[in-house]
């Protein structure tokens, strides 16, 4: 598998490709591993090291803005761009899910019900990322398979001003991707989309619409019977 660009790739495969710069690649014959300058790998870091550290909002805004710009260069329309942002969020969500459960230690639980997983997302997950809970969690009355999580003022949109011709765009698609990854991880396959839904109080209110695949509801119905 040469597509694996892991920095832990063994030297035998690495040396056949372009030889790495000696400054960063300290090859030792004994272990055949490439180390960083500090000779520490990702396995030597404690997973709780960054648990309480915070990222400055401006740094986040800058990085997120760059990410949106980068994504925009590679797409053809608003829908495509939202899909791209969703994918970026998906990768974050996959990692965050495992990290959160790992931090729960022995008390960690896998959620097995729709309501349980949705509450996990709007409470624990949201608090871990944004230090606040999601503002509402509702069920769509007309459709059995749809739920909504809303955020009155999503931090990803704070410094994004959407041009008129792209008024459909909501960069909350990034958060939607995170939610989708968590649902997928727990075997609740769903489509999650971000929609702007302003009210008098909150002009930037965003609703994440969660539409579950039919098999999820089928399974849930079986569980109720048992």
């Amino acid at each position: 598998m040469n597509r694996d660009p892991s920095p832990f790739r063994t030297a035998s495969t690495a040396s056949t490709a372009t030889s790495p710069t000696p400054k960063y690649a300290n090859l030792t014959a004994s272990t055949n591993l490439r180390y960083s300058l500090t000779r520490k790998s990702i396995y030597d870091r404690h997973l709780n090291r960054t648990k309480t550290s915070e990222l400055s909002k401006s740094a986040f805004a800058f990085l997120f803005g760059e990410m949106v710009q980068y994504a925009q260069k590679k797409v053809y329309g608003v829908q495509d761009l939202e899909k791209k942002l969703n994918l970026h969020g998906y990768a974050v969500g996959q990692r965050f899910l495992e990290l959160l459960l790992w931090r729960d230690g022995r008390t960690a639980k896998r959620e097995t019900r729709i309501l349980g997983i949705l509450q996990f997302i709007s409470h624990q997950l949201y608090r871990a990322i944004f230090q606040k809970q999601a503002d509402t969690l509702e069920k769509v009355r007309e459709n059995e398979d749809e739920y909504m999580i809303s955020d009155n003022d999503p931090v990803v949109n704070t410094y994004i001003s959407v041009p008129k011709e792209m008024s459909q765009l909501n960069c909350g698609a990034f958060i939607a991707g995170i939610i989708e990854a968590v649902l997928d991880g727990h075997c609740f396959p769903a489509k999650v989309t971000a929609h702007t839904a302003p009210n008098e109080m909150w002009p930037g209110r965003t609703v994440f619409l969660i539409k579950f695949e039919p098999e999820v509801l089928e399974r849930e119905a079986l569980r109720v019977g048992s």
Partner: protein
Amino acid sequence: MAGSSTSYYFVIIGTKDNPLYEAEFGSFKQGGDGIPKFREEQRHMNQFIAHSSLDCIEDQQWASKEMYLKTVDKFNNTWVSCFLTGGNIKFLLVHDTRSDEPIRQFFADVYDLYCKTLMNPFYEVNMAIRSQTFDQKIKAAAKKYL
């Protein structure tokens, strides 16, 4: 296989029932030397046993919220223990003696290592784990608990 010391077969299964990592080790307890004592024909049987237990896990994963499902399957004298992560990655251990608590501790260490692997931005879910450091750390955890 009923020798003086027990042997273990460990495998990590991805979300598409694809293997990500596998290892064999023997027990260090009771004067064991840590070398797996599987007979040659047992080694591929282990893979079959692990594979067939996936159906049992799918049955049991909805009955419990625990991540550690304890022993999920039994075939002749071998048991299969399972740990299921939030992202639906399965850690399976095929073993010939029952001991829930040491295996739970072993799985906890594996989960720690797996999370660290996942934190690597170049690693994606369901990619085979080829890191030698990971391999060494898994074997160290096995030596500590099994």
